[in-house]
């Protein structure tokens, strides 16, 4: 018996394929956080007064707060004065006007990541906004989108070109008072993506952002805001990688979504930040606040996430179902291997009548990984006939890992229907043997079984992302067969 466990554990040893550092000249602020740094960030970006004021309010509020201690994760205290809050690739002269002006080394790096921007452009029709460290380096397909009135650009550009839209929606879903890391992000965010879909428009292509942390000791604090006006539709993809480093790096992002009447936002994430090495050294602390406001009637917000990276993941993409008949969805695969820890889940807040939410969570733990699902389903008094279905499954590979489930259910309306199902299983030796007996290696068998286990979630991803996610899962769980 024990030999089988050992083989399975051997399989989940992985090498991080994305661990290269790109040699690009950076312009960085000194480490540490103060009002001056906040002002520096704001002035570097030539921001309007309202934004600087907002950042400062956030910073002052943050000073009064303490980091959350309730998640089921353990790490040494973070020294916020040891982090670099602004780091940008140095540019020759002005900002690049097209991809041709982007540093060829950057483009090369994207190729290494498997996202050759141009090829992707042509082949898949994906508009990519690539964020390196904290600054957006080039947005593709802008013109084609502009024809439809869709705005898709870096956050900084949105601040310059569309300040009214930013002013109206920034912080409207995740106020800076929301939590410790949201406050920090609000004070120091340096870039991110902005996306606006006008009334009645179906965005003609998948929008996509790739985030990468490159500079050492730098934190990444990007901010994404997506606004979908009445009857519009958008599908947005987000991917992330980071180089291998011995020290931990902080990533504290905020994502806000707003969906008006009948609008639909589908937000997919494939998160592959550096998870640390086999002994738990290094890796990204991924402390992220993501929330969508289904503001209008019949609006819909759907989160899909595949989380394979990060030393620590702390994130709960949530939906506030305010509009009557609005719909919220959360589909998640979270993998923890070696010493990775994840505390992730969702919140579904039902306010409007006939609101409906679905939660499908698949946690996979291997090595000494710890995986927690934490989810809140809250049915407010006003939400008559609200419905929720939650399914939280945990899969254990080996016997030194852990899975935990923390469902919170608050129902204040008696007409609501809330269903919760949870299972925990071990990857079956009989399943692996069955595959072996048909000629498949144990490695392939584990991949196949885990992929099958996650199918419901992968099905939600856009086609090309689903393929990438499956491969990533394979990489996360593969290794040398003992």
């Amino acid at each position, binding site marked *: *018996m024990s*030999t*089988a466990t050992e083989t399975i554990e051997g399989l989940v040893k992985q090498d991080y394929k994305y661990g290269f550092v790109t040699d690009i000249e950076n312009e960085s602020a000194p480490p540490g956080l103060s009002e001056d740094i906040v002002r520096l960030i704001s002035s570097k970006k030539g921001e309007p007064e309202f934004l600087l004021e907002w950042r400062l309010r956030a910073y002052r509020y943050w000073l009064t707060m303490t980091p959350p201690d309730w998640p089921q994760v353990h790490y040494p205290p973070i020294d916020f004065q040891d982090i670099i809050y602004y780091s940008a690739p140095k540019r020759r002269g002005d900002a690049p006007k097209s991809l041709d002006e982007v540093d060829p080394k950057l483009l090369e790096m994207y190729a290494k990541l498997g996202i050759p921007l141009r090829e992707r452009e042509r082949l898949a029709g994906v508009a990519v906004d690539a964020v390196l460290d904290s600054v957006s380096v080039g947005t593709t397909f802008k013109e084609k989108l502009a024809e439809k009135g869709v705005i898709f650009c870096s956050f900084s550009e949105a601040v310059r070109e569309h300040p009214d839209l930013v002013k109206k929606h920034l912080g409207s879903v995740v106020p800076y008072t929301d939590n410790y890391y949201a406050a920090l992000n609000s004070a120091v965010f340096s870039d991110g993506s902005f996306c606006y879909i006008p009334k009645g428009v179906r965005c003609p292509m998948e929008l996509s952002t790739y985030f990468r942390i490159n500079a050492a000791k730098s934190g990444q604090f990007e901010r994404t805001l997506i606004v979908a006006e009445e009857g519009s539709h958008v599908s947005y993809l987000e991917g992330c990688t980071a180089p291998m480093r011995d020290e931990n790096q902080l990533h504290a992002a905020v994502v806000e979504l707003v969906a008006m009447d009948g609008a639909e936002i589908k937000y997919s994430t494939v998160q592959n930040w550096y998870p640390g090495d086999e002994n738990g050294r290094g890796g990204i602390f991924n402390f992220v606040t993501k929330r969508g406001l289904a503001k209008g009637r019949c609006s819909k917000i759907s989160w899909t996430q595949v989380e394979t990276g990060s030393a620590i993941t702390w994130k709960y993409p949530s939906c506030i179902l305010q509009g009557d008949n609005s719909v919220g969805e959360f589909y998640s695969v979270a993998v923890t291997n070696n010493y990775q820890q994840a505390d992730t889940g969702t919140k579904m807040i039902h306010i409007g009548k006939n609101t409906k939410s679905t939660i499908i969570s698949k946690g996979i733990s291997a090595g000494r990984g710890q995986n927690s699902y934490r989810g809140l389903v809250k049915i407010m008094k006003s939400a008559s006939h609200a419905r929720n279905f939650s399914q939280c499954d945990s899969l254990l590979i080996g016997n030194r890992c852990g899975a935990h489930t923390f469902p919170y259910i608050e129902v204040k309306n008696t007409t609501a229907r809330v269903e919760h199902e949870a299972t925990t299983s071990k990857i*079956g*030796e*009989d*399943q692996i*043997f*069955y*595959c*072996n*007996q*048909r*000629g*498949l*290696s*144990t490695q*392939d068998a584990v991949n*196949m*079984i885990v*992929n*099958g*286990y*996650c*199918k*419901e979630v992968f099905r939600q991803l856009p086609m090309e992302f689903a393929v990438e996610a499956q491969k990533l899962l394979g990489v996360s769980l593969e290794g040398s067969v003992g």
Partner: protein
Amino acid sequence: MLEIRNLHAGIDGKQILKGVTLTINPGEVHAIMGPNGSGKSTLSAVLAGRDGYEVTAGEVIYQGKSLLEMAPEERAREGVFLAFQYPVEIPGVNSTYFLKAALNEVRKHHGLVELDAIEFLALVKDKMKALELREDFLKRPVNEGFSGGEKKKNEIFQMAVLEPKLAILDETDSGLDIDALKVVSAGVNRLRRADNAQLVITHYQRLLAYVIPDFVHVLCDGRIVRSGGKELALELEQRGYDWILSERNHTA
């Protein structure tokens, strides 16, 4: 093709096979019968290389090589196929994907080009029909939600696709209704060739009426206590196992 010599094996410190000796030549069908718990499934598990079994003595030669030294997937690629007594469900894994991957592993092993999805579907279509499997069968996850009989049929379907050299059928007949039994038996018989062999484990003569064995062996308490032709199965059906055991005790 297969030579089992004085095989002793057990699990969790419990001795189950206590000296099994059996030779199977190409083109032959051997049946193994025996009371519950006598070690039939254990024998098939040891031959297929299931983890957790300790072989304490004896050897197994398969096509001139030491079978017990090969990894289970290697045995499979070399043509050893086990139709499971209890086929395993693999939720979410599409049957087409699974079987195509399996077939391509075998093909790669023999230096053949891998089949793409279209070639694969063309290949399996007739085999599905022959086993009276429904069209949607390949789209469903491996064995998930299959009825007991469907699972057994699926094993024989996989066998038909993989075309093994040595097929071990562990109680493939149990749980099949009479029509399914005929279909499955016909499937097994179609795979019978001069260059391959079958080892059929069963409790019932009714299977052996369709899949006619060249030899019948009786496994009792981890040993083959009697071997004979197909008529031995009939005799067992009528008289049970006790007479063999008592005869054995007399002569011992």
